[in-house]
């Protein structure tokens, strides 16, 4: 093993896809379809058969733009309003225009969507304004279907390797990546003309209230790897102050799926069993009302199904206990929670970055390009707001196709061999260090500090103290030791988490207003200030290695909003109820 770590074999591919969950396999397949001669590899920290946040499938599409039910223009409007106006509409439109074709593509590949008696897609209304939810009652086969396509298109799959850093060429263009095998501790260098980051959310940023490090909402393999790698490669990130915070089943920390049960009569209720929000679609504004009810005298909050007919409850159980997070059935069983008799207690998740649900990601344009030439991002790690699984597929496809084009006109960029040596030393250091702090202890403390100082309601002085404590954790990284290659993987993830924590603090402090309901609720700047802050907040690595922030103008809208629609998402509370403050 030692010989190997000292002399990395240099692999070479045209398109390197990092992350084999949702966007990744689609990116690889579409790059191959665009040019079958390209060498395309999917790199996966786990195994592509069961990786990413849809390892057990998905129960529906949250943003299907299907002719007859919705138009791309309506969808762009809805997401613009849901995200408080801070969107690059071109990116949302690029998704919306390909949404229906992608559904048909998946249907052709064997994904089973709910259809009515005439064979049309059976779309449901969950959003505040339009109709975009398409159930997939047999969505547990999703990963198998993607795997079949990877094999069919002859994509090279590299399982059980994590990427730790990207390399840039002398002109700044992407040149490749450093890889670490979490089972053997071997390192490899892979050269690539293009890299597509599909590494998912930053799911291990906050600590779940259960205190269990891996009891996160997101698949905890997604430690924020892509956010950190893009940052160190000099890419711009955006909206990092617009956290992901979701309403979940308390302790279990998986989605209660009010949007699945909604069309069947289920809803989010307070302790009295009363509805208090008009719409269960996840947004910052909805989370704010959820938070107020949770903390108020009518709290906590529940998912209410106990009024439904037996056959409806059975159908809900069938969907929710076999897709996405199927262990929820046994969780409820342990607590004697029968949907027929008891409401399900809910809570809010730890904070994270994820454009799939909110808007925090690596800045990408409508071609999935980041600000680093040759580097792409798709899925939860990209920056197209509220993009969900179908958005990951569409942007994976866009990235794959654009990367194939890029390869036609660009050769490999050189990697500086000193950079390789430096990076290898950095990632292997915890394995060579004896008697230091174990990664799990460092991670626990770091994520506990994230909760204490960064979780909304955000307070300026608290976030500043958080920054001081993160600086101490950065020093502690020098004392972290790993007992084996598996712990070495965790040690390197701790460094990703710390990068994300520092970026979250900096971006949150920079935007001196409140926006997106709970996501960026700053107690000492409680108002939304459109004069000063109707802009994207960008984050980049500064000269001193710490994050710097700046404003980026919002591109002129391509779909204008009606005056009466603008604040639709500010009116989510049911009229007859009032939040207690």
């Amino acid at each position, binding site marked *: 093993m030692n010989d190997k770590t000292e002399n990395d074999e240099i692999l070479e591919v045209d398109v390197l896809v990092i992350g084999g969950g949702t966007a990744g396999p689609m990116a690889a397949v579409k790059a191959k379809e665009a040019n079958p001669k390209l060498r395309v590899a999917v790199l996966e920290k*786990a*195994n592509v*058969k*069961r*990786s*990413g946040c849809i*390892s*057990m499938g998905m129960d529906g599409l949250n943003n299907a733009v299907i002719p007859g039910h919705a138009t791309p223009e309506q969808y762009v409007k809805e997401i613009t309003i849901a995200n408080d106006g801070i969107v690059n509409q071109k990116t949302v439109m690029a998704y919306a225009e390909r949404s229906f074709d992608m559904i048909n593509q998946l249907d052709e590949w064997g994904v089973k969507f709910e259809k009515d008696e005439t064979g049309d897609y059976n779309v449901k209304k969950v959003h505040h304004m339009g109709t975009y939810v398409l159930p997939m009652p047999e969505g547990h086969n999703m990963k198998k279907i993607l795997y079949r396509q990877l094999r069919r298109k002859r994509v090279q799959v590299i399982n*059980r390797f994590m990427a730790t850093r990207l390399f840039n060429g002398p002109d700044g263009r992407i040149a490749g990546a450093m890889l670490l095998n*979490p*089972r053997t501790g071997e390192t490899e260098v892979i050269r690539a003309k293009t890299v597509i980051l599909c590494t998912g959310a930053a799911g291990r940023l906050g600590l*779940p209230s*259960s*205190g*269990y*490090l*891996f*009891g*996160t909402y997101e*698949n*905890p*393999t997604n430690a924020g790897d892509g956010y950190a790698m893009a940052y160190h490669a000099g890419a711009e990130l955006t909206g990092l102050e617009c956290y992901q915070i979701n309403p979940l089943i308390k*302790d*279990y*920390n998986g989605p209660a799926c009010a949007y699945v049960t909604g069309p069947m009569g289920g809803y989010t209720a307070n302790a009295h069993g009363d509805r208090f929000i008009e719409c269960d679609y996840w947004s910052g504004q909805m989370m704010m009302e959820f938070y107020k009810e949770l903390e108020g005298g009518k709290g906590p909050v529940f998912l209410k199904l106990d009024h439904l007919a037996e056959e409806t409850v059975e159908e809900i159980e069938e969907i929710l206990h076999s897709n996405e*997070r*199927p*262990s929820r059935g*046994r*969780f409820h069983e*342990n607590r004697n929670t029968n949907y027929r008799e008891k409401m399900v207690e809910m809570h809010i998740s730890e904070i994270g970055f994820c454009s799939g649900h909110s808007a925090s990601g690596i800045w990408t344009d409508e071609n999935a390009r980041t600000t680093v030439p040759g580097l792409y991002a798709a899925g939860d790690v990209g920056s197209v707001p509220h993009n969900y699984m179908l958005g990951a597929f569409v942007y994976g496809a866009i990235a794959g196709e654009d990367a194939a084009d890029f390869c036609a006109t660009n050769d490999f960029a050189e990697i500086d061999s000193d950079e390789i040596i430096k990076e290898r030393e950095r990632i292997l250091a915890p394995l060579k260090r004896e*008697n*230091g*702090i*174990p990664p799990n202890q460092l991670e626990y403390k770091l994520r506990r500090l994230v909760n204490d100082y960064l979780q909304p309601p955000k307070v300026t002085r608290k976030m500043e103290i958080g920054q001081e404590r993160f600086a101490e954790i950065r020093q502690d990284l020098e004392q972290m030791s790993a007992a084996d290659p*598996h712990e070495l*993987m*965790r040690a390197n993830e701790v460094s990703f988490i710390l990068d994300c924590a520092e970026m979250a603090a900096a971006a949150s402090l920079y935007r001196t207003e409140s926006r997106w309901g709970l996501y960026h609720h700053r107690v000492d700047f409680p108002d939304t200030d459109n004069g000063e802050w109707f802009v994207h907040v960008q984050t980049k690595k500064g000269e001193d290695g710490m994050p710097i922030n700046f404003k980026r103008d919002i591109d002129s809208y391509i779909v204008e909003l009606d005056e009466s629609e603008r604040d639709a998402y500010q009116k989510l509370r049911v009229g007859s109820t009032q939040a207690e403050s």
Partner: protein
Amino acid sequence: MPKSNLMNTMPVAVNSEACIADKGCTVCVDVCPLDVLLIDVALGSAYMKYDECWYCLPCEKDCPTDAITVNIPYLLR
């Protein structure tokens, strides 16, 4: 630094009678997203080595002999 030896209960239980790791099966080890399962060669059975479970179930569902039970981790049960 001195270290403690804390004990934790593990969420993933493997029935070593039913497990066919001794026949070369590594399905659960292959599919675990968190890479927390290993094969105990002496015992001829898989086991959970690292307490880092997302209770996501691929190991249980994909096991050819139904040897695996995933329990909800105690801290959030």
